[in-house]
């Protein structure tokens, strides 16, 4: 029997697609690759021993306004955390897309504090250096953290400038017009806000930095 011969040459797009399909990815998980009590440790840190009682109903994903853009739905994050898929979880975009709207937290039929779980995962990812270096969300968090640590208050204009410098300076051009509009309406200030008793603040925040990573 003879195979049909291709009648036309592949378009470039098509051959690209074929190449992509041929690049097989191994999708299997060996128990030895898992961190088996990762779930319990996260639960402990996130006020959520209840994490383990998840029944995988998906209410969190369905109520999440950002689930459409996540690489894993929140439900999957819980399942993966519980089962010890630490690397996948800490590398996921999901934890950074969580905007802390607490919709899942309120609706979860098992009353799991999902938002707190996400915060815990964010902290772990930062501490262990899992996130991509120029992903803006953790950078924003870090810049914000530094600014407030220093001044006690946040000045939005300064925060945004440092964010753009560390991620993509070209965005600054895009945002300049909006910035100008805000500035003209007195909604962006140049002077930096700060608390009077910075010493007191620093004493409070000067405890031993960082808790042991999970």
């Amino acid at each position, binding site marked *: 029997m003879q195979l049909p011969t291709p009648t036309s040459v592949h378009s470039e797009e098509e051959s690209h697609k074929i190449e992509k399909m041929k690049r097989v990815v191994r999708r299997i998980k060996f128990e030895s690759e898992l961190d088996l009590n990762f779930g319990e440790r996260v639960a402990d840190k996130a006020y959520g021993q209840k994490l383990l009682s998840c*029944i*995988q*109903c*998906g*209410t969190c*994903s*369905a*109520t*999440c306004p950002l*689930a*459409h853009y996540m690489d*894993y*739905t929140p*439900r*999957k994050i819980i399942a993966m955390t519980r089962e010890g898929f630490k690397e996948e979880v800490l590398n996921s975009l999901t934890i950074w897309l969580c905007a802390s709207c607490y919709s899942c937290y309120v*609706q979860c*039929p*098992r*009353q799991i504090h999902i938002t707190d779980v996400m915060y815990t995962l964010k902290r772990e990812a930062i501490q262990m250096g899992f996130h991509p270096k120029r992903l803006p969300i953790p950078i924003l968090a870090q810049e914000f953290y530094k600014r407030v640590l220093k001044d006690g208050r946040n000045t939005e204009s300064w925060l945004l400038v440092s964010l753009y410098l560390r991620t993509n300076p070209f965005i600054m051009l895009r945002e300049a017009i909006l910035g100008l509009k805000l500035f003209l309406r007195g909604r962006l200030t140049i002077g930096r806000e700060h608390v009077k008793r910075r010493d007191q603040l620093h004493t409070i925040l000067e405890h031993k930095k960082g808790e042991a990573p999970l």
Partner: protein
Amino acid sequence: MHGNGHNGTVRIGFYICHCGHNIASIVDVKAVSEYIKSLSGVVISCEYKYMCSDPGQELIQKDIKEHSLNRIIVASCSPLLHEHTFRTAVEKGGLNPYYFQMVNIREDVSWVHTDMKAATEKAKDLSRAAVQRVFHHKSLETKHVKIHPDVLIVGGGIAGIHAALTLANAGKKVYLIERNPTIGGHMAMFDKTFPTLDCAACILTPKMSQVKNHPNIILWTYSEVAKVDGYVGNYKISIRRKPRYVNEELCVGCMDCIEKCVYKEGKTPDEFNVGLSKRKPIYIPFPQATPQIVVIDRETCIEFKSGRCKKTCVEACDRKAIDFKQKEEIKEIEVGTIILTTGYQTFDASRVPFYGYGKYPNVYTSLEVERLVNASGPTGGELILRDGRHPKTVGIIHCVGSRDKNTNRWCSRTCCMYSLKLAHLLKEHTDAEVYNFYIDIRAAGKSYEEFYDKLLDENVHFIRGRVAEVSDWAVRPSEEGKLIIRAEDTLIGIVRRVPVDMVVLAVGMEPQADSQDVRRMFNISCSTEGFFLERHPKLAPVDTFTDGIFIAGACQGPKDIPDSVAQAGAAAAQALILIDSGEIELEPNTAYVVQNECSGCRTCLTICPFTAISRDEAKQKAFINEALCKGCGTCVAACPSGAIKQNLFEDEMIFSEIDGLLKMESPACC
């Protein structure tokens, strides 16, 4: 310190049970046995694999004879489980059964502890306490109470009906009390039943009319239990018969009066159709209502509101059955046993605001849909939505008010199956696309899984995901004018928006709103969620902790029809055991007054909740009526001169138990 005094020489036999591995894996039974052997009065101390088995019991009997034992102690499971077994064995061995004492080293020790050393020490302490206690045991006579042969059944749903017929067919007189105007309960409202799809009315109504016509059943509908007095075998019950303003003897259910009512159209939401239709102030709940007698609703009848109605209903009745002056009536009856079949209520769907019940007209509860697809329902079985449309797509949301810590924690057990049934019926009636949104499908019953298979073959959609929201928020033209269901399809791992015309909420089952009042009235317990508590979750599923009172059906927990009927039969059988044996043995744990120590101070008189204590004015002494005493011992603890004693729980026995528990120091305790 414990002389055997008037009891003669005390010769104790101590037996410790391995209960397979249940006890022996945590308690060093050998060590306990050897330790007990060293105590004074102990003649025999040994261990055995299963004391409750026949050889175990025979061992006791043999030893009693061979070693002239006069006290027996078994350390095994809870006395609530096997005390009776061992007492009987002791009696067969020729010893008075009340010389027996049981030590609980399973439920109280091996099952709740993990440290072998601590558990063994605790078992020793408890056993030693029993050894010291039995020195004070006495020979007692078992109390017997006669059982009145009549039975009260509360609640006329399928469970109550089945229990009533079972007992009546066995020749017993049954009072069946129902608070609604008709019996039938929830089952009468259902359209078809799963998994067989036979029509609920077709299988229920024959049983309803059997109840009505059975010579052994006295059926009182529109009635409630007002008061319960007495005890097993001798309950005195007051029944409140609410006035229906229609003479039950005269009414033949012709319904002419209903037609002639001054209201041309019904104005009040019809209870039977869950508010989907309206009824008049004078009505009959549904065509096959039993008894077939009309009832007048005082709240909505003009005559009661203004006293100036033309009373066309009275004119219409040629049997002169309507009686506006009818009064509430209290009936006193005596029964020996009681079966509670008070059923359940459905979850109020508006408690989950995310699903839009009460906000979007085309969101229905499952019970409403039962009526909607029923040929005798408000639309004659045609599926017309509240906005007049016929649905082309339907979404059924499972677990509404079930498996949710924010509402009800438990699984309601029936919703999966009735949702499958409704999916089938809706498809059959409308040929609509039907989507089931479920967390898990629980089809664990005879032929249930096969029914699920059938639905899959019918191409009903099954999306595994709990719905987060039902709304009218359309983001695509195809969604305009629809209700949009948002859920994650967890098996595919993506959030889906499914636009539908009709949403069915599979509401769960919960305890009746007044279940706490009812259980207090009958002096039984409830589980934490509010369902009536059975005596043992496995071995005594229809008994309660109050002798002579049984439970069946959904008042005990969510249940479908077959399970309710099975329980009702079981409860009837339990009642029959009591009735046919004619009497029941009661613990001889009654209190008595040691006459020459009584100072006649009257303290005990007011304390006894059963008025079992009276005062002999001539002798100036208290006197306890043994038949009325239920053995709580409250008077014993209250008597200032220590003149009242309680059999089986005498002060000396408890003091010696305390001694036994504390006298020796053990590693776990010191």
